[in-house]
């Protein structure tokens, strides 16, 4: 049985996932606080965090809703931030595609940055793992992460209202995003995509309904793809 649950792989995943608690806790706390500040109730904040499970997209939606952007733009922009999840899903399919449908659905719900990074690295290093061992490792890696995501969002939502305006929480989202952006800028193509997106976002800031953001995002993506092709032709990596 290749899909049997493998205990030792599961616990290895748990061990590897533990350090991420330090990252996920504060991030979830911040989301809880910012969401309550933006006027969401405890129930709304928790539903948001538990059903979406993607910090960057949740922050994007909050920010745009507080700017009164049209609902369509809020959803499109936040989902665009989440498009990377489709890439993760594609790259895990060769490893987990043979599982029964309900296990694939479970893995899909629990697919986040942290366990994707751990699992893809582990599966590359140990190609002889069975599908069952891979699934167990993947679920193990998310075990310390997901409950902390819920718990610290809840704590943030509880204390959110008591935070004074002098703390300048309006700037929590920009700082969080810039911090996440730094490590993502791995190649010249990433940098070019980001620079073009920034320039377009400022130039198109006058466009109504926050559509400038969508235009800037598309321009940035096209730039990244172009520069990547060009760099491949030049033989730079």
């Amino acid at each position: 049985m290749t899909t049997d649950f493998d205990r030792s792989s599961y616990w290895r995943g748990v061990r590897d996932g533990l350090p991420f608690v330090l990252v996920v806790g504060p991030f979830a706390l911040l989301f809880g606080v910012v969401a309550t500040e933006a006027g969401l109730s405890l129930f709304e904040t928790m539903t948001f965090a538990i059903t979406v499970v993607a910090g960057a997209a949740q922050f994007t939606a909050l920010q745009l809703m507080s700017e009164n952007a049209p609902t369509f733009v809020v959803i499109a922009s936040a989902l665009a931030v989440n498009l990377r999840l489709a890439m993760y899903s594609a790259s895990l399919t060769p490893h987990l595609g043979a599982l029964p449908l309900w296990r694939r659905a479970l893995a899909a719900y629990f697919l986040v940055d942290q366990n994707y990074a751990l699992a893809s690295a582990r599966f590359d290093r140990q190609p002889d793992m069975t599908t069952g061992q891979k699934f167990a490792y993947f679920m193990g890696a998310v075990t310390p992460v997901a409950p902390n995501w819920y718990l610290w969002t809840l704590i943030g939502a509880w204390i959110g209202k008591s935070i004074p305006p002098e703390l300048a929480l309006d700037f929590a989202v920009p700082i969080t995003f810039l911090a996440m952006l730094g490590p993502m800028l791995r190649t010249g193509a990433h940098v070019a995509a980001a620079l073009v997106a920034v320039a377009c976002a400022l130039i198109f800031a006058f466009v109504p309904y926050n559509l400038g953001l969508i235009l800037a995002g598309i321009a940035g993506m096209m730039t990244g793809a172009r520069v990547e092709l060009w760099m491949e032709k030049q033989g730079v990596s």
Partner: protein
Amino acid sequence: MSQTTTLWIVIIAMAIGSFGLRFLFLGLVGDRALPPWVLRHLRYTAVAILPALVAPLVVWPQATDGTPEPARMAAAVVTLAVGIWTRNVLLAITCGAITLYAGLFAFG
């Protein structure tokens, strides 16, 4: 449409959309490969959307009604620089927050 209705539309759409994106390949597409040009564009979505969202907030902050403001500007530069330098998200957030509060104290 009330604020609450809008919020719930966003939450429900994002819940379905986020699960959909995660399930797309694992559940539906299987082992079929995507065309390379699609993957090439997908690789740059986050690096394009995140800075595009942040740039206007840094240059024209809401808290100052759109007047450029040195503390927020400095915090943005420090956060990005530390993030690029150390690849450590939490450290970058911490340094950015310290810069912001120091700046607000000094200029405010």
